[in-house]
């Protein structure tokens, strides 16, 4: 099958793109890497009347270090570039680690960093990682811009706060404090396949070795990535221990996740994966943090 007919616009600047999106309103849809959108259009699950292609806007593709030690990533930066970028590897090794799990070479060549977040797939790594890293997202429209925290950006499966006339322009990743360790753990049926369940843990230790802060995020086990509140309750201020990690895993599995049964895994299997992966991720994050991150 092929996509239904639609109008196609290829603006060459952000301003021109925003004009087009405003004019088109609900008829318009942003095309980024197309690695989710074109597939959906090929099967006619998506039937946009018009596409606004951001691929011709060079000012949207960049990786810039920020003064405070973080990174600003332009929405159209390809996942492949993030995977290979030296600055990313230095500042956020976690991001590099995770990028390698996203689809396969062909998908990463084309797919974009911001596109994956805007797509808000509950099984996508980048929406989850942007929440775990407390990213700030720059959303632009013709009438102005606003900053949205990643946790507030996504509110349902494939649902974000983006209005039709808006585009995601930039993702800012704040720096990790010293003594922070980050880990990504996923189980999938085959390499390059979507995760049946995955866990991200980012832990910061204080000078005495107690947990100062923790971000624990689960994906593929709910309608959105899930940021654990229990992990913060149980761990912050405490000396990390295997017992505490197991308590977190139990609290997460019984109270925070809501996995579904589908072709890829049963809900029970996903719960069991999370139970195991949470302990592994926290243990490793703690080890990395105690070695300085």
């Amino acid at each position: 099958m092929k996509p239904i007919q639609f109008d196609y616009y290829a603006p060459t600047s952000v301003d021109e793109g925003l004009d087009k999106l405003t004019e088109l309103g609900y008829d318009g849809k942003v095309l980024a890497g197309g690695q989710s959108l074109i597939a959906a259009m090929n099967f006619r699950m998506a039937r946009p009347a018009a596409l606004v292609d951001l691929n011709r806007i060079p000012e949207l593709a960049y990786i810039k270090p920020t003064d405070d030690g973080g990174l600003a990533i332009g929405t159209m930066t390809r996942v492949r570039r993030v995977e290979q970028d030296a600055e990313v590897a230095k500042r956020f090794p976690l991001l590099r680690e995770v990028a390698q799990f996203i689809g396969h070479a062909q998908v990463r060549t084309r797919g974009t960093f911001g596109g994956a977040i805007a797509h808000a797939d509950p099984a996508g790594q980048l929406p989850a990682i942007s929440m775990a890293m407390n990213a700030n997202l720059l959303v632009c429209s013709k009438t102005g811009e606003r900053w949205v925290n990643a946790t507030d950006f996504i509110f349902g499966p494939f649902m974000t706060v983006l209005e039709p006339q808006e585009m995601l322009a930039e993702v800012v990743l704040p720096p990790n404090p010293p003594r922070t360790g980050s880990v990504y753990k996923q189980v999938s049926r085959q390499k390059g396949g979507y995760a049946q369940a995955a866990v991200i843990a980012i832990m910061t230790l204080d000078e005495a070795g107690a947990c100062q802060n923790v971000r624990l995020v689960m994906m593929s086990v709910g309608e959105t990535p899930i940021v654990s509140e229990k992990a913060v309750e149980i761990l912050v201020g405490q000396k990390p221990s295997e017992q505490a990690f197991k308590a977190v895993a139990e609290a997460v599995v019984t109270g925070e996740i809501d996995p579904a049964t589908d072709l890829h895994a049963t809900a029970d299997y996903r719960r069991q994966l999370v139970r195991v992966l949470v302990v592994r991720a926290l243990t490793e994050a703690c080890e990395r943090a105690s070695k300085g991150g």
Partner: protein
Amino acid sequence: MSVTRINLTVNGSKEVVDVPSNWTLLQMLREKMALTGTKNGCAAGECGACTVMLNGEPVNSCMVLAVECDGAEVVTVEGLVQDGQMDVLQQTIIDAGGVQCGFCTPGMLISARALLDRNPNPSADEVRAALVGNLCRCTGYIRIVEAVQTAAQASQ
């Protein structure tokens, strides 16, 4: 419906094509340019049978619109033949018995070529990682991986 005139280079030759906006690169290659080496498997990015090189990097041509390729350089499996000479990968995949029905082969060859272009001496694991997006229902992959490694050695 909008039709757009695009300029692009396909296998080294400059082309001017009028494409409807809803055509994928795959459809343009097969139906407008009669380059049927590139295969249509799933149209969803899953199988890699449609893999071509876009500006030197492998992409699934079923997931790129033709209009997006204005100004681009595309290489398909047909373009691997230079002056009547097959790419070394083509010879080694035949020699290794890495082709059975052949449906996956064009995509495999492009992914493998992209790998060797940036990493001339890959390990077996690196070859497998580069070919993860190319499904083969016949060979069991082992001979394909061997063929890529043999080609790498032959090119040293």
